[in-house]
């Protein structure tokens, strides 16, 4: 007995409806908006590529993009190194491995808002415990959140704390899939630890490493809630990245056309990395 031909479509219907209504259509509207002047209330006015041209000329937009890239290029290598380092420690024969893993993974579960709030409580200029510890050590307190450069650093620290655990899990599973024989062989050949890290671990870990890089990059480009809670994007605009800027332009300044043009730029960046991710994972999964 064969099921009727329409059955699979019925099973797919709810998903396809949601994907069309809440992803595909909005994406198309977004592209349309980007060619219009639109405040959300009055009728749209077609302006061709004016919004894009204005973006290219806007020094504020370039500042935001530069900040976003600096954030991505600082956070991602640190996340990568931190996650790999911890993963390499945790694949050794150890007691309490599971406990350590849980400790490093736990912040991943905490929402970005609470991550931001937690670090704000710790790093606060006048009430933060970190400044107290600095004073104890005979050092000057530091304006962690009200100085532009320090605020950026604080955002990076909070990002690391919240994300390293996630990528650590990926690295652990990657490391565990490297056959021990390779290390034995390297040892017999007289390779040092460092040597076997560069000649065995890194090359065999390449698929995992690439995936971690791509995922971390995409995620970093989209980061907003963490800054929202930790610094509010400040001081000034020192920690305002692209997503927050789009939000402000669209919802606060109600320049929907401009905000949509920026979204298209962000989309292009994310799309490139996602395509690479697909290539690497044959559709999203490692295994």
């Amino acid at each position, binding site marked *: 007995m064969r099921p009727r*031909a329409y059955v699979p*479509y019925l*099973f797919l219907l*709810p*998903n396809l409806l*949601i*994907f069309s*209504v*809440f*992803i595909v259509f*909005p*994406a198309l*509207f*977004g592209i349309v*908006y980007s060619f219009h002047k639109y405040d959300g209330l009055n009728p749209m006015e077609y302006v061709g590529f004016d919004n894009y041209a204005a973006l290219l000329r806007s020094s504020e937009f370039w500042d935001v993009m530069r900040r976003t890239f600096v954030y991505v290029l600082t956070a991602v290598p640190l996340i990568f190194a931190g996650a790999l380092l911890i993963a390499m420690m945790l694949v*050794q*024969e150890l007691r309490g491995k599971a406990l350590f893993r*849980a*400790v*490093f*993974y*736990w*912040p991943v*579960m*905490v*929402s*970005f*808002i*609470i991550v931001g709030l937690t670090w704000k*409580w*710790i790093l606060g200029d006048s*009430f933060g*415990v970190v400044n*107290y510890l600095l004073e*104890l050590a005979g050092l000057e307190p530091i304006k962690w959140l009200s100085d532009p450069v320090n605020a950026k650093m604080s955002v990076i620290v909070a990002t690391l704390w919240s994300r390293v655990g*996630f990528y650590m*899990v990926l690295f652990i*599973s990657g490391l565990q899939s490297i056959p021990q024989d390779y290390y034995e062989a390297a040892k017999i050949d007289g390779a040092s630890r460092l040597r076997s890290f560069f000649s065995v671990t890194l090359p065999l870990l390449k698929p995992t490493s690439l*995936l971690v890089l791509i*995922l971390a990059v995409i995620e970093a480009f*989209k980061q907003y*809630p963490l800054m*929202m*809670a930790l610094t*509010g994007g400040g001081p000034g605009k020192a920690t305002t990245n692209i997503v927050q800027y*789009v939000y402000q332009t*669209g*919802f606060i300044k109600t320049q*929907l056309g401009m*905000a*949509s043009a920026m979204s298209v730029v*962000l*989309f292009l960046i*994310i*799309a490139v990395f*996602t395509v690479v991710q*697909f290539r690497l994972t044959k559709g*999203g*999964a*490692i295994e």
Partner: protein
Amino acid sequence: MTARNRALLYAALIALALLYLFPVVWVVLSSFKDANELYSWPPRLIPHHFTLENYATALDEGDFGRYFLNSAFVTITSTLLLILINTMAGFALAKYRFKGDTFILIAIISTLMIPLEVIMIPIFKVISWLGMYNTYWGIIIPPAATPTGVFLMRQFLLTVPDDLLEAGRIDGASEWRLYSRVILPIAKPVVATLAIFSFMWRWDDFLWPLIVIGTPEKYTVQLALSNFIGQYDVDWGSLLAMSVVSMIPVLIVFLVFQRHFVKGIVMTGIKG
């Protein structure tokens, strides 16, 4: 490994772990301090006057109970919906041959390229047109369909033999019955993984509520917290208490399902 190296490794791990634990421990301890002690200089690690005052304030004046219930409702409803529709779609794509099946699979996975961050502006319009602005449905329905979920379910079901379904069909079972009575029970590991991740995504979510919800009485926990912390005069006492309480549900899920998490991350490697 030599004994010395092992000792060094432990020392490094313990130091790192303490560093990692400190922020949350400090927040939890601070939340039990009274207003004076919270800002006392030098700060004290262990609260001297242990008090639940902050929790009471958060509940009374902060209206935290309402936000918590809002979040619970959204998280649970959204998770149930997510499991239902994504396992259905995964089932269709794994167990039927039909016109356009490959195209639909690719189209669904391609939507990963369009995260919410990219369509914030138009989605707000769509939500408004559909009358979903400032409703819970506006944060429950749109994120319920997830490419990750569909893909996980499909991959899992590809390993399940078709004979099971054929046997059911010979017995006269309807296709819906096959899905709900045969497939879903088999797919328990996928359902568990999806449930856990969905719970975490929705409970921690900030951007959807930010865009969809307009009035304070419908705030979720995260939206309420982000609002309080943005205020000029932050009431740290109740803010810390709220944070601690709002971490409890994910902590429980984490402790109970830890193993699923590891598996889930490795299986999907993707978020959202």
